[in-house]
């Protein structure tokens, strides 16, 4: 059995990227890249590298620094990368390899497949196993169809906020088009990963605060609100892949991921949604809703079947952690023809 007590922390690791202005270097990190226990030939493989120099442009023209995972395992130096990170999509029953390559002399990261429940070594939590230094193969078997996401679990408070997450979808064995075996069918789908950004955090180094510096990570004061990587102020209303165009009679599957830290409420612009799953598990009885209250990392899978043409603005409200007041909104749109 893997013993966390044998993990060797690297205190005061020579700060990647010079430790930046924080001047501390990294503490309580556990660089390693052991052999994967019980490695077998997988049914499907994903290769993920790291980019630390991405950016997105907000509707007000601001450029926000973004970190994430690249597809293919290469290093996105100078290239940035997709945001959110490229989706991982597999079928129930498959054995999956997620190969993560990290330039451990510069920074450390992991992949935690959120909602996936593998062995300790493959759970991707630095403090409980190791932070990847080199290449590690996360091996897991997709037991339950549904909507998940994956994110970095090193200095998580910062790394997930910086954008290091992507969708993770497990289709039933019969493939896309059915939410889960015996569950509802759908004609089209969309992933809405709703998140907030505190741009003041987006200048920090990967190891910020780990040695005890006060870098303000106890308080999130977001100034931007996004849906699947797109500014929810205006752009998400029309952005391809976020906004939905559909026909009367079609069944839309919304895979809603509360990808930020704040509590959210999503309303579907007057449409009724039927929630069939949450957190990758079918509900015993689906529920009909016009709004969903969610907290960080929850997922809700909803089927919407409009009965007439119309334009519906979907609104996601974000609630301040302290005051519980709405401090921001993000909007996208369902257009039914």
């Amino acid at each position: 059995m893997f013993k966390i007590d044998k993990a060797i922390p690297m205190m005061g690791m020579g700060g990647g990227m010079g430790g930046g202005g924080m001047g501390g270097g990294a503490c309580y990190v556990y660089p390693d890249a052991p052999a994967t226990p019980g490695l077998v030939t997988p049914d499907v493989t994903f290769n993920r590298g790291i980019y630390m120099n991405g950016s997105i442009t907000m509707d007000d023209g601001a450029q926000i620094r973004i970190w994430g995972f690249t597809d293919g395992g290469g290093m996105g130096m100078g290239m940035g990368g997709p945001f959110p990170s490229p989706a991982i999509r597999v079928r129930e029953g498959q054995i999956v390899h997620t190969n993560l390559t990290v330039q451990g002399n510069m920074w450390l990261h992991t992949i935690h497949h959120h909602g996936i429940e593998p062995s300790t070594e493959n759970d991707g939590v630095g403090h409980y196993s190791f932070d990847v230094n080199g290449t590690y193969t996360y091996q897991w078997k997709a037991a339950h169809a549904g909507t998940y996401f994956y994110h970095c679990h090193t200095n998580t408070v910062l790394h997930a906020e910086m954008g290091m997450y992507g969708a993770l979808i497990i289709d039933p064995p019969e493939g896309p088009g059915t939410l889960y075996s015996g569950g509802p069918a759908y004609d089209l789908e969309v992933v809405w990963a709703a998140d907030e950004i505190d741009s003041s955090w987006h200048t920090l180094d990967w190891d910020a605060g780990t040695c005890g510096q006060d870098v303000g990570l106890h308080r999130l004061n977001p100034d931007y609100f996004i849906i699947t990587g797109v500014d929810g102020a205006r752009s998400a209303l029309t952005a391809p892949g976020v906004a939905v165009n559909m026909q009367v009679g079609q069944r839309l599957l919304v895979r809603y991921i509360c990808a930020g830290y704040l509590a959210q409420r999503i309303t579907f612009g007057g449409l009724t949604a039927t929630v069939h799953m949450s957190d990758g598990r079918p509900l015993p009885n689906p529920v009909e809703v016009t709004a969903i209250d969610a907290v960080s990392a929850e997922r809700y899978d909803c089927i919407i079947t409009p009965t007439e043409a119309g334009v519906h603005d979907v609104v996601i409200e974000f609630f301040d952690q302290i005051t519980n007041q709405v401090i921001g909104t993000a909007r996208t749109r369902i257009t039914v023809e």
Partner: protein
Amino acid sequence: MKRRDFLKIGSAGLAGSLLGGAGLLSWTPRASAATIDRSFYVTEGTITQPDGSDVYFRGFSASGTGLNVPGSSLVVQEGDTLRITVINTLDVDTSFVIDGLVDSGPIGPGQTRTVEFTVDQAGSYLYHDGLNAPYNRLLGLHGGLAVMPAGSSNELYPGSPTFVQQYLWLINEVDPVWHADLARRRNPTTAFEPRYFTINGRSMRVPGHPDYANPAVDAGYATDTRLVGSLGDRTLVRILNAGLCIHSVHFHANHVEWLATNGQPRPDVWLKDSLRLPADKGGIDVIYPFEAPPDAWPPVSTGHYPMHFHDEMTQTAGGGLYQFGIATTISFE
């Protein structure tokens, strides 16, 4: 208040602890109702936070010379009468309140008061000081009460899914500026800005830290927070929020069965890996099933995993120190 009188609680261990030596809530059902006597001394002191700061707290303590934050958990059964005696050792008023069940009213400096009440409804309850709300409660004057169904040893409410062991987690957020103001007997004037985040009064430590694995300090090893089980050891966790923030409770390795929120049984039991913990005295009750982690390949039956809150600001201490916050360990043994 004399600062030298403060009890300081740090790595030396919890003085006057009334944990009974066991982390689990232990319970043997009785054939008939009983009267349960318990005394709490309202005391004050400081507790050392992960960044080394000593922060002022008050507690419902087991003795006049100790400091328990939170107060020790009570486990009783439906129909029992509770007789709670509160001895106020401080120079400010205090009270003992369970919303909907009992309110002692103000207990003045140096006063002792006994309240008596009967519990009729199984579930999880927060006891707290209701005065100067929410300040006295946030200072640490809170604890948990578990009311078992009459004659039952393994249900949250009559007919609920069953468990074999149970824990009670009390969540709090700590703004040291507020605590310092209240130590000086004045109410805060600043916006709430918690910098420490606790589960049963402690934050987590991580490997490499001097207090890592010290059960008196490390929430990952404290016997009243760390979930320990073997396959099949279905574990009820009663989670009560003394703080002011909505939280997301995230379990690794197993989905939990979501049985109740704010004392209300859910119409259906949903399986969840992330759950809303309502703010301001809210609570949820879940069963962690200790099933073999379903996505492991090859299959495993042992391992160490975190339970942590996913509103990740709660994973910090003093503005940094990631994962020195509201987290504990789930140990499959």
